[in-house]
């Protein structure tokens, strides 16, 4: 119980990553796989934020509420996550654009049928 409460955010984000991986591994619909990838992405972002999380900490701004840096959450992961989100979004956009193209060419989004390139 103690484990869960103190590591709940880690559990949550790895759960997201695993769900994403499961989707990417198992689902045969391209869109679902893209969603899965996005889930992984979200999970990872959460994880990054979680690494800098400090229970009861404040925003990393020197203000009245928090004068000591020890009381602030770590700002670096938040910066990272911002970047990561941007990257994730661009990947997602590109993926969806490609998915449309794939559908145009093949008339299907079924990954089992997308085996034009192999061996």
């Amino acid at each position, binding site marked *: 119980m103690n484990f869960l409460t103190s590591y709940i955010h880690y559990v949550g984000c790895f759960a997201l*990553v695993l769900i994403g*991986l499961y989707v*990417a591994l198992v689902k045969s619909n*391209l869109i679902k*796989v*893209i969603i899965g*990838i996005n889930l*992984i*992405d979200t*999970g*990872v972002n959460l*994880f*990054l934020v979680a*690494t800098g999380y400090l229970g009861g900490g404040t925003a990393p701004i020197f203000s009245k509420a928090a004068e000591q840096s020890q009381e602030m959450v*770590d700002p*670096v*992961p938040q910066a*990272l996550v911002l*970047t*990561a989100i941007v*990257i994730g979004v*661009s*990947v997602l956009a*590109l*993926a969806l654009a*490609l*998915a449309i*193209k*794939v559908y145009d*060419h*093949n008339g299907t989004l079924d990954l089992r049928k*997308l085996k*034009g*390139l192999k*061996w």
Partner: protein
Amino acid sequence: MVSPILLIAVPLALAFLTPMVGLASKSARRYMPAIAMLFNFIVAMSLLPKALEAPIIVRTAGWAPPLSIHLVAGPLGLLLSSLVALIGLLVAIYGIDYIREGARARYDVLYTLLLVGATGVVLTGDLFNLFVFFEVLCISSYALVAYRGDSAGVEAGMKYLIQGAIGSSLVLIGIGLLYGTVGTLSMADIASSVGSVAGSRLFISLAFMIAGFGVEAAIFPLNAWLPDAHSSAPSSISAVLSGVAIKAGLYAIARVVYTVYGASSILPFLAVLGVVTLLVGEMCAFAQEDIKRLLAFSSIGQMGLILFALALSSATGISGAVFLIISHGLAKALLFLATGYMIYRTGSRDISSLAGMGKRMPIMSLCFTVGAFSLMGLPPFVGFASKFTIVRAVLGTGSTFFITLLAIGLIGTVIEGAYFLRIVQWLYFKPAPEAMPEQTEGRAPLTALVPVGLLAVLIVTIGLLPGIVGRALGPAADDLLDRAAYIQHVMGD
């Protein structure tokens, strides 16, 4: 003085300027990537001598490491960025006339971005920054693989994207884990504090990063995207992907393993992985009928050899690996470029369609042969010098484990010889099919002949005078091996 940051900033600016230039003059826009890379090449080469003495540290916004995001333009970084710029420049010249369809503006932008990403990867001193540049590289290459918008290209791009995205996520997890452990992102800083933190957490973060970067580095079994992507992309893109992009992934692994973690325990595993990659790549290449797919698999094989050499953890070994990165970059770029116009000429990627090419496209065929010979490691081409260095390094270690691995790996070289020489036979010794429609648009223009010829000349010249690059190899190897010096240079005293 010129700062290494220009290597990133200027091409980046030029990349985004490209569409605007396109508004003014469509034909001028085509030259933008070449200009950017020419600039990079000149700057990198002018910085290289200085970096050979000591790495040039660039601090952003006046903050000293480890707080700032900083560039570490060491010998290895600058050597590789010169290579990136050189190949980028030649391929850009090639691309001026080669790319005939699709949204040209996007090609130019993405192409420049890809190279900026690669340059950033090799120059940065910050782990997250590495990731960002890595993503720049990856995303532009996903798009470029699918550039033609044909069925194969889109499918390959899609698959590449899925694997790449998962790989990137793994890298990010690794970075997060590491950050959670040591609380810093500067590679030098991590390196100095990693020694005090032992244990599984560190290793797991390393595992994530290896698996993540390994996708781009085309390590077995993470390389399934590569043959698809390389064979479906336009040849100019295949050339940079094979010559530059995958090398960036490998660089990232090497940097992380050697500098950041100093993890020598994983090196034997990486050596085994390298040899397996080598063998699998060569075996798969052997049975290919599609020339570009064959070249792609051959790239996998060469990457395996580089990884193996990197894992030797000796100065000669890493020199050899870097040398092979250079020689493979030149040779593979040459091969893809030469193939590009041959495919235009025949309209087919089948090896059998290359019959009689020696007569129809003599210069391209000759250059192709030079590239193939170099790749096989035949003297007097550059491939020999690099492979020789690697073999020497392996025997220099005196370890039975590595020597056995090498002996197994050399079988790969034999297979490689078999398929490449078969192609050479197709080029020269098979009669051209009767009544071949002469496609005049397939004739290689000067913008194709110059880069291809130049690459061939480089391969022969460096092969004959390996001292040209040899001088930089030693410092480059030390750059990776000598953690203490790296830390000291970056962090100051």
